[in-house]
């Protein structure tokens, strides 16, 4: 299948965090944004991400994005981000306007049918230092990864998840205010079951695609002799009738816990690595090969292995959503040199050089970014929300 090119040629932001000044012109390949901490480098990546998806990767509260100070206490304050996108030679303009509690999205001045449809127009993948929690941290990051991938194969996935979550909150409120015998509990549970089952289906499919790709990449960059397995770990029954039955049964327990014990809100992506025990052991003289040990990566993998796992998952995300949409996703990397360790940097840079699409990265140490010939690279410095082009020499 032919993969079409995709890049943002210009980004402008108004009333967005601390960003000021002229629109940013981007090359089709690498753009390096450098500057001291707190100047607005991440804000630029965030502005681009918001323009392409209508969401932020840093916060779920869109009101945080509105520049403070400009019109203090003004409910009408508005932030606008606009990206000139070029897909396979054809231009389009994507605009997201944010106001307290609202967002308005437009593609070439037309409103798309839904936010889900908007969010899959121009695939973009972010890499930030906190991303290490994808491998080491709590399950929420991994569910978000599944949902981002699911969105590309089925835009309704977003709707199912939203409906499931709403029904789940309503049911918990009913439990807390009117107890386990409330007459409408079964109705909310029926809706949780219907939309929860749909959510599981989307996530299972996303996990299968992602898992296959991640294992393959890990085989190439991970430690020799190690294998990564990525599988869907549902947080409850995947089938609607069964989920409904379990929910009804668990009412007292859910009331005590203050939230539902079972259901897709507790889904996870199980990461396990398999390895032959290393080194010589007392049994190493046995003729039969030793059994392969399966470990959940949390708690057992080394820091370096976690990085390789995260890189594999991210590479899988890029490949999967790129394939689903038929374009090369745009890649945003935040704080590339913040915690320099040689291993990570080497793997990361070879991964980066292999990227054929558009890449934006931020760093406090531009001299360490060794990725591309100068004709493929544009450099900017960011200072107090203003970008300036860095002239050679």
């Amino acid at each position: 299948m032919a993969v079409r090119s995709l890049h943002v040629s210009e980004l402008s932001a108004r009333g967005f965090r601390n960003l000021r000044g002229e629109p940013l012109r981007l090359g089709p390949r690498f753009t390096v944004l450098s500057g001291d901490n707190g100047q607005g480098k991440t804000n630029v990546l965030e502005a681009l991400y918001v323009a392409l998806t209508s969401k932020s990767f840093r916060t779920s509260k869109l009101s945080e994005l509105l520049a403070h100070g400009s019109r203090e206490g003004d409910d009408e304050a508005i932030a606008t981000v606009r990206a000139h996108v070029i897909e396979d030679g054809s231009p389009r303009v994507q605009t997201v306007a944010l106001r307290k509690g609202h967002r308005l999205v437009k593609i070439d001045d037309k409103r798309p049918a839904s936010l889900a449809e908007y969010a899959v127009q121009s695939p973009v993948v972010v890499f930030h230092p906190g991303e290490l929690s994808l491998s080491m941290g709590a399950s929420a990051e991994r569910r978000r990864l599944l949902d981002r991938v699911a969105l590309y194969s089925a835009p309704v996935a977003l709707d199912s998840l939203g409906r499931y979550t709403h029904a789940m909150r309503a049911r918990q409120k009913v439990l807390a205010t009117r107890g386990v015998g409330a007459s409408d509990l079964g109705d909310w549970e029926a809706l949780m079951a219907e939309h929860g089952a749909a959510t599981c289906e989307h996530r299972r499919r996303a996990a299968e695609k992602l898992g296959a790709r991640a294992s393959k990449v890990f085989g190439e960059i991970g430690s020799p002799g190690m294998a990564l397995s990525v599988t869907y770990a549902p947080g409850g029954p995947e089938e609607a009738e069964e989920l409904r039955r379990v929910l009804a049964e668990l009412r007292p327990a859910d009331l005590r816990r203050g939230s539902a014990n079972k259901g897709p809100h507790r889904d996870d992506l199980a990461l396990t690595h398999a390895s032959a025990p290393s080194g010589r052991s007392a049994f190493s003289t046995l003729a039969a090969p030793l059994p392969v040990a399966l470990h959940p990566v949390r708690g057992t993998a080394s820091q370096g292995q976690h990085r390789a796992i995260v890189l594999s998952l991210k590479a899988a995300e890029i490949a999967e959503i790129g394939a689903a949409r038929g374009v090369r996703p745009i890649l945003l990397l935040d704080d590339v040199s913040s915690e320099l360790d040689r291993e990570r940097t080497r793997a990361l840079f070879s991964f980066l050089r292999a990227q054929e699409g558009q890449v934006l990265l931020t760093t406090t140490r531009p001299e360490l970014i060794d990725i591309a010939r100068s004709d493929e690279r544009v450099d900017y410095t960011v200072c107090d929300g203003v970008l300036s082009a860095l002239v050679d020499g």
Partner: protein
Amino acid sequence: MLPESVAKLGKLFSRLPGVGEKTAARYVLHLLTSDPEISRTLGEELLQLHARVRPCVRCGNLAERDANSASADAVCDICRDNKRDGHMLCVVGRVHDLFAIERTGTMRGRYFVLGKLLSPLEGIGPDDLPMMRLISRIREEGVTEVILATPPSVDGEATALFLKRELGPLGIAVSRIASGVPHGGDLEYTDPITMSRALAGRQKL
């Protein structure tokens, strides 16, 4: 600076749906530069509005009170229209939704406006729904088919499931409008063609 009365009226207009500050100011200027009779009639109509128009006692639709009657009760045109099929009752969440369905011109029966949807997060539970009124209306008027036309939001779906169960013992046919209506959408903004299809494609629950 605007005279105080102009600013005040502008503020009031801008509270109307779809009217921003600019449009509100245009309304005020228009009234000030036109025949004063327009402002006077508008004012009188507004003064009388709530006294003259009441929720229909039977269905909750908007109804004009009988000027010659001492009673505050009012019955709407649809409930009075004896060409309507009294066996069919369409249950909606809000008056806006009733209008959206009426616009299709395909609803032969009458309506019942709930006024609310189940919404635990906003503190609305089954006791807040007018179930007694609905059930007695079904019994008294010999309704044999109820169409649940609550919106396709999660709260609307939950309300439909709840009503279906509560009406079960009455032994009447209960159906739900088809979900041709955009998901999560508002019936009010559904175009008449989609709305007629949703009605025609209603499914027995």
